């Protein structure tokens, strides 16, 4: 509990107490916690001296600021037209099959969350996805299995 308080305090010290520092602070919490808990938003509101509803309202506007618990690795597969034309659905099936979850779900061990997202800007190397901030392009079911296996290996030490 106090951990979040400390994190928010640190972030506000680093970025500043003004309203225009809200986004960097929210992003900082996501970086550590993967999502914004109610407690973290209330804490941010207190530190920046703005209503908690304002923090919540701002956070929920942005698709990368999740307010529900997420896995350690958030997979965002691009679903916009260029990727969709180049076999995005097959890649999605491979991901779902391998992780045994559907879009919007997190694996029971809390490691992977599978999401779809709008244009990532890699249309010329479609299909594309990001895992946290790491970009992967020219995906195929085979390639996506290799990539995920790397992550799974990493996790299992």
């Amino acid at each position, binding site marked *: 509990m106090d951990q979040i308080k400390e994190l928010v305090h640190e972030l506000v010290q680093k970025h500043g107490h003004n309203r225009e520092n809200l986004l960097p602070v929210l992003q900082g919490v996501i970086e550590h916690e993967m999502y914004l808990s109610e407690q973290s938003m209330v804490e941010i509101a207190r530190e920046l001296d703005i209503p908690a509803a304002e923090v919540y309202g*701002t956070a929920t506007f942005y698709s990368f600021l999740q307010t529900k618990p997420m896995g350690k690795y958030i997979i965002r597969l691009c679903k916009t037209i260029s990727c969709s*034309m180049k076999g995005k659905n097959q890649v999605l099936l491979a991901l779902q099959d391998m992780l045994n979850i559907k879009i919007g779900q997190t694996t029971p061990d809390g490691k992977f969350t599978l999401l779809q997202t709008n244009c990532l800007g890699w249309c010329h190397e479609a299909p594309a996805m990001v895992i946290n901030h790491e970009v992967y392009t020219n995906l195929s079911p085979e390639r996506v299995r290799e990539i995920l296996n790397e992550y799974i290996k990493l996790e299992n030490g």
Partner: protein
Amino acid sequence: MLSTIKRSRQELINELISSELKGRGGAGFPTGLKWKLTSEAKSEKKYVICNADEGEPGTFKDREILTKVPFKVLTAMAVCGYIIGSDEGIIYLRGEYQYLSKNLNSAIQEFEYYCKKINLNFSIRLFLGSGAYICGEETALFESLEGKRGEPRNKPPYPTTAGFMGKPTVINNVETLAHTYTIFKYGAKKFYDLGVQYSRGSKLFSVSGDTPKPGIYELELGMSLQDFVDEFGDGDTKAVQVGGASGFLVPRKKFGETAIGFQGKLVGISLPTGGSMMLFNSTRSMYNVLDNYLEFFKEESCGQCTPCRVGCQQLYLGIKAVKRGDRPATYLDKLLKLSETMQYTAKCGLGQSVANSFISIVENFREEMIY
């Protein structure tokens, strides 16, 4: 840069105006005029903002510029600061490009060191977005920078008088800034000599879809779509989407009569684009393409104004209902009217431009929407 900022502000503005450079984000506002208006605005504090919230489907050229030649953009921002009287620049980078921030930050550091050396008081900072297409709209971007929901403001006032924090602000697309660098370095005439009337200079194009050579290309404005397809098509190009989801779809039979550039009085059909060029061959269903765009708009509409919030939803549901047979084909005409209403009544460019792709796809490929 040193030789540029030794010239007078007026001279630089005149050079930029004579180049006839227009904004490369897609809207095409004359850049020289924007800088002139902001330089004339009276305020102690002004801002230079680089719009790197490249979110239009099919666009990826700004990422390339920031990866390969960040110094062109940083220099352009500082020169703009010198001209308009600003000491602070901000790059608003979309969250999807966060992986670029490490390199960009070190480029900024190096650049600021150089600025100090030549006694130019200008600082630049990087601000990351968080996955919202609408924040590419300039006033929504200001809101986002101010720590709020990215909801577009009413215009006027325009950014030239009241932008970020209510101060006069120049906000330019990444590519536009890079072009100003080239113009000041090599002269307006070299730039002006490229392109055609109303659409001067070259532009970066992001080419994707059914093409044997997807990628980023610099081409002269004013080229005919037929020439473009001859160069980039796969021999079976059925249609090209010019300008991303918010742009226009051009069917094969209109390739010859369509040029790529800004609309002027004498140039016939000319389509502006932020650089997104998506090619579709005859294996593609244009229904699927439209459905994909509408899903995009439905999700990315900020929800602030009713025409856009409800309109995007109803268009999305409407074409599905027609396809399923739950609605008669004539329902498409109602939807066309709805999209026109959005064009007139939506608050910002997002809601207003949904009609572009909707009308151009439904009118040219009506049978594909129904069967």
